[in-house]
């Protein structure tokens, strides 16, 4: 495996991690947790209020 491929794979992993951090901070601003898929009542209310 060439140096280029090595660096490319590392860059992809780091890039992915960077993107995840960005995504999570964006989500956090909306009051969501990275784990949270669970559409609880409160969250539905918050989403609806935002749409208006």
């Amino acid at each position, binding site marked *: *495996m060439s*140096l280029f491929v*090595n660096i490319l*794979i*590392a860059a992809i*992993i*780091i890039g*992915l*991690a*960077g993107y*995840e*951090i960005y*995504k*999570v*901070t964006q*989500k*956090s*601003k*909306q*009051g*969501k*947790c*990275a*784990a*949270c*898929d*669970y559409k*609880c*009542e*409160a*969250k*539905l*209310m*918050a989403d*609806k*209020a935002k749409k*208006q």
Partner: protein
Amino acid sequence: MTTVALMGNPNTGKTTIFNQITDTYAYVGNWTGVTVEKKMGNIKHSEIVVTDLPGIYSLNPITKDESVAINYLLTDDADIILNVTNAGQLKRNLLLSIELLEFGRPTVIALNMIDDLKRSGIYYDINTLSEKLGCHIETTNARNKDGVKELRDELLNMPADELPDGSALELNYPFMVKQAIRQASEKLISAYDMKPAFARWVAIQYINKNKIIRKYAVKNDLKPLLEQQGYYDAQNFENKIFNTRLSFIDETLTSATKNLESTKNVEMTSKIDKIITHPLLGLPIFILIFLFMFKLSFDWIGTPISDQLDALLSGPISTYADKLLISIGAMPFLRSLIVDGVIAGVGGVLTFIPQIFTLFACISILEDSGYMARAALVTDRIMQMIGLNGKAFIPLIIGFGCNVTGIMAARTIEQPKERLITTLISPFMSCSARLPIYSLFVAAFFPKNQALIVLSIYFLGIAVALLMAKFYQVIFKVKDSTVFIVELPKYHIPRLDIIWRGTWDKSKGFVKKAGTIIFAGTVLIWLMSNFGPAGFVTDIDNSFSALLGKVLLPMFAPIGITSWEAISALFTGIMAKEVISSSMMVLFHTSSQTALIAAFGQMFTPVAAYSMLVFVLLYVPCFATIGTIKSETGSTKWAAYSVVSSFVIAYAMSFIIFQVGSLLF
């Protein structure tokens, strides 16, 4: 335009139904005189406006907030009343329904949570109920949206201009009461031009000592009522009205009840409750149940399985991955990133799944069996002793799963000040993300008392939360505390599918986080520990993470944290608390818990380890929680305040524990 007044007892799923039948809603300021927000919504493609009124047990208000409902009936002209009831607690819920039916407006009663009722082996014949009560009845299960469409259609099919004048329910009150009602209402109709149904309702409410109606009578100088007040009260009509209503409900429910399973369940429930909610035994039982839960998670089931997973990960998986990477020609830095970074960090955290799964399964069992409501009741006594409302305990219990959902749940608290207090204390509840680091530390320092130590941390979290709540209550001058009444569902054997769903719902978040934020945090700490001011470093002591940790060492030494690795890990923990343990794995270049535990042994004394656990419990909330505090309170100020205050509290607690503990042990 048709207006629908949504009324019902608290915790009947009123707001859930409101959200499901309306498509748009808005808070339109506060109700007059109180701090409860007024919420109105529209049913899609219609002119129907629904107003969500605060939950009440009776039209006679106990607190100021509850007066909103009766004032609404007096001043606003609701065309339809939608009364949401908890089907499982119909006997009590119908007390309010009768008062609403006597009002004489067309009423729809929604028997919500109908599934819970069916599970308890009881069902009501809807036609009989509808006939006896003289109104439309719909069965719903708002949580699964069952019956909500039908309810909506029912409301849509009641256009305002065609509404009949709704015949008010007339109960067979004792002769004297009946006569008093008749005489008063006749005079009200002739002298005050009141509609017959309204006059009758006002008379009944007046006789029944409704505070608001009594004021209304004085204000409008309703002489027929004012003159007779002494007589009504002396005859104790209030009790007679109550008894008539109760026997009407009993009779109605008896005739409508179908397929009544044996009453064994009811007897059993009250027998169990005598012990479990006992004023003295209640709390110790609550603590014992939690201890048992942690025993299962840490000593009996969780940790042993976790150890197996750990052995698999740090042994065959790591070795195989390393060999594979060498064979395809990966360079050392890439191997380090994948094996020491991603596999050790993400994999390391995933090995804690058994503990988390077990704990969530236990919580799901407690929820489904009906114990959680009792837990709220038991803790309410203690909370009352320090002048707090037990209602806040429910969001706090949800906070055990995730602080974000806990804070979201605080929305059910109608008083803004109480809601703010609950939001601010929620981060002190020990969420599941903190379990991996607890697990590591208790295995390293307290192998024989793992469950007990974790239990003490959880209860310390509750204690700090309660103390802070009291503090805020004094600062914010909260006086008019709402009454806390909780439904006590019947006990039943938890259903396997519900437990599985509950456990999976709560645990899948953890698995998902492993692929997102934990992965990201792990890569970040790997970068920080492999790069320094001079670029790529081979000696971790020259890395950014070491520099950061070392600069802060003097600050953390007084609380017993003397390793820069721990300080760096605490920093990354702000992304998500699980990242603390994955960072430790990366910083110590190991995916093996056993190796990590050995390394800890040289850095911490047991007292310092406990102080570190307390610090992890209380220090700065994770990103998601900070974001939620900001969005829920609508201010950056409160989010920043939460970050600073929790850090100060964590530092102070750990300082006391470490300094006093070091003197003692």
